[in-house]
């Protein structure tokens, strides 16, 4: 047994290997059949291993003790008598007497049978460890995911071969590689023992959902829907993220077991306040629940799921009905003790969100014409039921409904895909009709799914929905009424759909040409796939594709069988049901509630028959019979700007048909709003911040040119002025030099010359003149002597 548990990590690894092979090995990618078969084979291995794990879990002594029912003590123990069980449990030292302060009983799910952790990264002096484990919840989910997954994978072979868009590359292999990645992430999410690993897988399934919704990404509607799905769930994930951080910060642990199996930890979380806003448990539970709201399409964030129907139908079945959207509910179930520790306020919040979603989506489903959209809103509504159950403390009820819903909703979606392909790409229910004769396998299986969804007695949907209604009945009468009305609406719109699709006359070319390959008729089967496009040319009503292949109808039968057989584990025994014993919780049965719910479901079917069964549509353009009836009821008059408007009951129908205008409101508020914000920020960045930088640059250039002027005109001007002065001065000096200094010199020279010239005259050369002069000189000197 230990060996089997040690191999649990292989379960998600198998499909991942198929994905890797398709992505990286061109030889696989270019062989469509090989890629499909490889993925299916890997999924089958996962299923095999999941079943082994499941049976090993069932065979485990602890589980056996619970299953055999003699362990009333075990079941009761978590609630009140924690101490006696602590002695029995192998890891009892971690569960001391539960110090329940408020007397609020906290349900502790059974401990994991197997757990393994590994080092992921170092955080300070600690180590962050991730790991995987097996507990009853995991075991049940593993089987559900891999079984439903395998059916859908097989179905996809036929569906994707028949689906084509005007010669577009079908990307058949790519589709299977995405499916494999999805299965790996989903299975990883199920075995994660750690919120972080769970979150990682959670985001990866979101990625696959994005890739697969936008699989035909040459269509605008497809990629718009893909982005919408990713962003809307991402908003929820921001809440999830914060919830994780709160838990991580206050426990230093991200192991789920550390939190949910320890009353003392839960107690501490419930009594630690976060900055006075609320307790850690409440805030983190609400954070995680916001993630659930996004992923499981609960009311404020439900808008992405109907649009997600743009993806191929197997994707709608697998991801957007059976498994991924259930991950949100699974998260609440997984962290259930935390929600309980968070207190009644949080639980009530959860319950009300679920209840509102259940009725809100169910009413919208009444007025949809697209076969897949009806189922999409039905899914939202059913997820609302599950959340409602969990919010009311119905751990078993919510989780059981998750499992049964996965089967019958996958069945319904695949059935709708079969109808679409069978009726040659008609999705509008008004263009169908009369298909019950033409597509018998599809019809009968669809009928089983529809009855299960409506909650009719021997089918599994009856037991699971009944448990939810019972929980509501016991704890919250208001929500019980809402849930009962939602149950009525559910059976009503499903009846409407049945009549639209299968009853009456075929109302389009495609529907008239619908056919199935019989289970035991080889000759037709061989003829069918040989002519996939039928050479019908460009006729607008081109009918291509043959009858429905067996690989599309057989999975329907398997799922229908599952839907029927699952009720066995939901049968009320004296101590709950087999299922409740397995997952370790309570399940009751009340004949009164079951009776009322059956009556309500039958009433819904009856009303559907009265309105739709008696007024079958003649052509695709006929109005909806319900709308016609509601048109007749006038509620009152409205005066608006002088005009009188008749307010008729059909306004309500329009409101439903337009989905309460939520898309329009969100589109205006958030999409346009964020675009506007982005544009304003872009303008701000360019004009103000970069403007400031460029302004600074501009200013500095201005400044520098001012300085340049100053430098040129003033500083340099001064220098030039000084230079000019120097030049003037030097000119004066030059003049002075030339005329005065030099002039003096010249004047002296001239004077000397003149004097010389004059004196020259006495040089006569006559001795007597010289003697005369000597005599005069002597006389002069003697005269001077005498005078002095």
């Amino acid at each position: 047994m230990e060996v089997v548990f040690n191999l649990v990590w292989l379960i998600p690894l198998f499909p991942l290997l198929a994905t890797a092979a398709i992505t990286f090995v061109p030889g696989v990618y270019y062989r469509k059949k090989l890629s499909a078969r490889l993925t299916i084979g890997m999924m089958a291995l996962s299923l095999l291993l999941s079943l082994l794990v499941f049976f090993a879990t069932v065979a485990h002594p602890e589980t056996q003790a619970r299953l055999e029912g003699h362990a009333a003590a075990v079941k009761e123990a978590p609630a009140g008598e924690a101490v006696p069980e602590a002695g029995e449990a192998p890891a009892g030292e971690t569960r001391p007497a539960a110090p329940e302060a408020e007397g609020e009983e906290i349900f502790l799910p059974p401990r994991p049978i197997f757990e393994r952790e590994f080092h992921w990264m170092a955080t300070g002096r600690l180590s962050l460890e991730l790991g995987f484990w097996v507990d009853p919840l995991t075991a049940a989910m593993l089987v559900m995911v891999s079984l439903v997954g395998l059916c859908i994978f097989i179905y996809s072979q036929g569906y994707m071969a028949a689906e084509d868009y005007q010669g577009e590359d079908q990307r058949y292999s790519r589709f299977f590689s995405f499916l494999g990645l999805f299965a790996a992430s989903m299975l990883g999410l199920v075995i994660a023992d750690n919120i972080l690993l769970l979150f990682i897988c959670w985001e990866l399934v979101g990625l696959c959902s994005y890739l697969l919704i936008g699989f035909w990404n040459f269509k605008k509607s497809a990629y718009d829907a893909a982005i919408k799905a990713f962003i809307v769930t991402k908003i929820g994930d921001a809440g999830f993220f914060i919830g994780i951080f709160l838990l991580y910060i206050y426990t230093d642990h991200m192991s789920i077991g550390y939190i949910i199996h320890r009353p003392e930890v839960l107690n501490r979380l419930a009594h630690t306040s976060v900055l006075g806003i609320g307790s850690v448990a409440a805030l983190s539970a609400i954070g995680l629940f916001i993630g659930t709201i996004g992923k499981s399409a609960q009311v404020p964030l439900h808008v992405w799921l109907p649009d997600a129907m743009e993806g191929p139908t197997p994707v709608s079945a697998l991801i957007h009905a059976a498994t991924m959207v259930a991950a949100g509910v699974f998260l609440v179930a997984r962290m259930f003790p935390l929600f309980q520790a968070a207190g009644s306020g949080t639980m009530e919040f959860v319950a009300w969100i679920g209840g509102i979603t259940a009725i809100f989506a169910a009413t919208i489903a009444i007025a949809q014409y697209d076969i897949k959209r009806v189922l999409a809103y039905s899914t939202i509504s059913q997820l609302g039921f599950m959340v409602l159950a969990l919010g009311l403390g119905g751990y078993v009820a919510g989780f059981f409904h998750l499992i049964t819903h996965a089967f019958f909703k996958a069945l319904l979606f695949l059935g709708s895909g079969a109808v679409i392909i069978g009726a040659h790409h008609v999705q509008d229910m008004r263009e169908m009709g009369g298909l019950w004769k033409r597509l018998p396998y599809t019809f009968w299986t669809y009928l089983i799914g529809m009855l299960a969804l409506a909650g009719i007695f021997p089918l599994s949907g009856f037991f699971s929905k009944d448990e939810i209604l019972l929980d509501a009945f016991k704890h919250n009468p208001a929500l019980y009424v809402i849930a009962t009305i939602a149950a009525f609406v559910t059976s009503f719109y499903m009846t409407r759909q049945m009549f639209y699709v299968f009853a009456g006359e075929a109302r389009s070319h495609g529907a008239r040409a619908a056919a199935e390959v019989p289970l035991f008729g080889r000759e037709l089967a061989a003829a069918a796939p040989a002519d996939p496009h039928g050479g019908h040319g460009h006729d607008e009503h081109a009918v291509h594709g043959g009858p429905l292949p067996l690989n599309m109808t057989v999975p329907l039968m398997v799922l229908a069988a599952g839907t029927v057989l699952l009720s066995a584990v939901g049968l009320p025994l004296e101590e709950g049901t087999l299922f409740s014993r397995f997952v370790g919780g309570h399940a009751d049965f009340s004949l009164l509630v079951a009776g009322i719910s059956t009556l309500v479901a039958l009433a819904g079917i009856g009303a559907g028959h009265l309105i739709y069964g008696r007024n079958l549509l003649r052509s695709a353009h006929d109005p909806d019979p319900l709308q016609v009836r509601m048109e007749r009821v006038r509620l009152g008059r409205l005066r608006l700007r002088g005009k009188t408007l008749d307010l008729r009951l059909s306004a309500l129908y329009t409101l439903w048909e337009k989905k309460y205008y939520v898309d329009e409101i969100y589109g205006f508020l958030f999409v346009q709003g964020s675009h506007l914000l982005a544009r304003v920020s872009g303008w701000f960045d360019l004009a103000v911040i970069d403007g400031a930088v460029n302004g600074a640059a501009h200013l500095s250039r201005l400044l520098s040119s001012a300085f340049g002027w100053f430098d040129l005109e003033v500083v340099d001007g001064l220098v030039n002025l000084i230079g000019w002065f120097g030049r003037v001065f030097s000119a004066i000096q030059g003049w002075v030099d030339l005329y005065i200094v030099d002039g003096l010199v010249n004047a002296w020279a001239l004077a000397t010359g003149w004097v010389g010239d004059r004196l020259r005259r006495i040089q006569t050369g006559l001795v007597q003149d010289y003697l005369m002069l000597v005599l005069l000189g002597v006389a002069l000197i003697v005269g001077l002597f005498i005078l002095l």
Partner: protein
Amino acid sequence: MDVIGEFLGRMFTMPTPLYWAGTIATALAVGAYTWFLLLRKDPNDVRGRGTALAAIITFLLLLAAPAVFGSVDILGYWPILTLITFIPLFGAIVVLCLPKERHDWIRWTSLLISLFPLGLSIALWVGLNRLPEGMQFVEKMAWIEPIQVYYHMGVDGISVPMVFLTALLTTLAVLYSFIVTDRPKEYYAFFLILEMAMIGVFVSLNFFLFYIFWELSLVPMYFLIGLWGAPPRQEGRIVRGGPYAAIKFFIYTLAGSVGLLLAILGIYFTQGTFDIVELTQRVAGGTPLFEPGSVGAALAFWALFVGFAIKVPSFPFHTWLPDAHVEAPTAGSVILAGILLKLGCYGLIRILLPLMPHEFETFAPIIIILAAISIVYGALVAMAQWDLKKLIAYSSVNHMGYVVLGVAIAAMSGAQLTTKAIALSGAVLQMFNHGIITGGLFFLVGVIYERVHTRDLHLYGGLRRLVPVYAGVWGVTSFASLGLPGLAGFVSEFMVFRGAFGAALEVSSARFQLLSPLAVLILVAVSTLGIVFTAAFMLWTIQRMLFGTAKEKFQDLYDSRHLFDMDLREVLTMAPLLLFMVIVGVYPGVIVDMINRAATSLLSLLG
């Protein structure tokens, strides 16, 4: 098995320089062989399978050899940091000596040279994990002793990822740039000099050395943007284009560096040393660099912060980035986003955080506000862009906001050590992740731009059908960028936010001097919404580029075979980056353990 074990055992016990000689000789021999193969081919044929194969073999051998030989004692003998830093400079000189018309020689020489730092940085990585905490591979010798300038190098778990990232991205940038035909000699020389400067910043432990490398890194980038970038063009009142962006980049960073220089001088005049390790120890020992609470301390803090924040770039100092990215050549954008931005973050971590912890803590709320604005505002502005490069440039502002947030959280002494360590390691990991992811995105923009010569997203569409491999690679890289779990970006965002929430909840309100813990909590929660915006604009970009049907222009280009899928060289460029995105995303312990060790020891030193 025994034989192999014995062989390995002997290898690790033999005298070590011999091994290095052997490693380098092997690398050179393989390189020579590659070169030889190449010379026989048409010089302009870079897509030859033989040459590419030889390049792969060289690459792998070089990666493997030092990792195998990289035991601690080997590295002890060898000035490995000096080698890592200066081999590119040597390479630049070699490249400059080659004949300028032999483009193939220039290319392959540059590639070969750039492989050496890469191999050695892997040796650093392997070696560091076997060494005790603290600075390792230290080299210290006197340089200008009278003013206490030492040639001091060393690395720890924070710098090694950065050194490795630099070496890796430079190698890939060189490989990618094989298409450059305009003056390749100068181009590659600038690249190699740039590599030297960047690695120099990451390994310097002396302010003087640090500052030299810091400033030096500007010069080659200036020329790369200015000369190999887009030609100038009139746009409104501004003449945008390569020269404009280059000048803006240079002047803006230089303006920040002035404050940095003044602060360094201020520290030198008060403390009398340039040594970062010594200063860190003094601060940790209880002697702050400046009197706590004084104006001088605040001034020094803000001078350093602004100097680094410009380089990061943090809001509101980010506007040089879109211009520089838009105008730079592809490989230039990659290096700019991948590494140059990290210099600023590295400065915050290596200098500002340990040297001025008190001031950092005081001003942390302001820095947290700036970081939160960078995260949300960066994403919003990116959402409004239609120029592909500009969009990614703004996404860098968004991503670097996480780094600043992480560092600011690590400065809060009131938070628990675990919280701070996670925040700081998250910041360093985010630096690394941003390098590989945004570097990869810029490569991919280059790949498509080369073919279609437009970055206007209005013209894009339908690439998924025309170029499926490219579309796949773009998709993975975008998802890594928007923080998809399982890919690298998520881990660092997770760590930073864990740290931020932890700090907001653990730090008592008395510790926050400027903001209440509740305000910080709200800021951080709002930043979480930045993740949603990032997802939104990344998905819109994917939608605009890959989905829908191709517009006429693209279809024509496709029909005329101008638009073809990624070739081998481009795939080889992206492959290591994709590999790291997945490895870090799936098992972050590979790198986080190393970073965490350094971060924890740094933080516990600060107390």
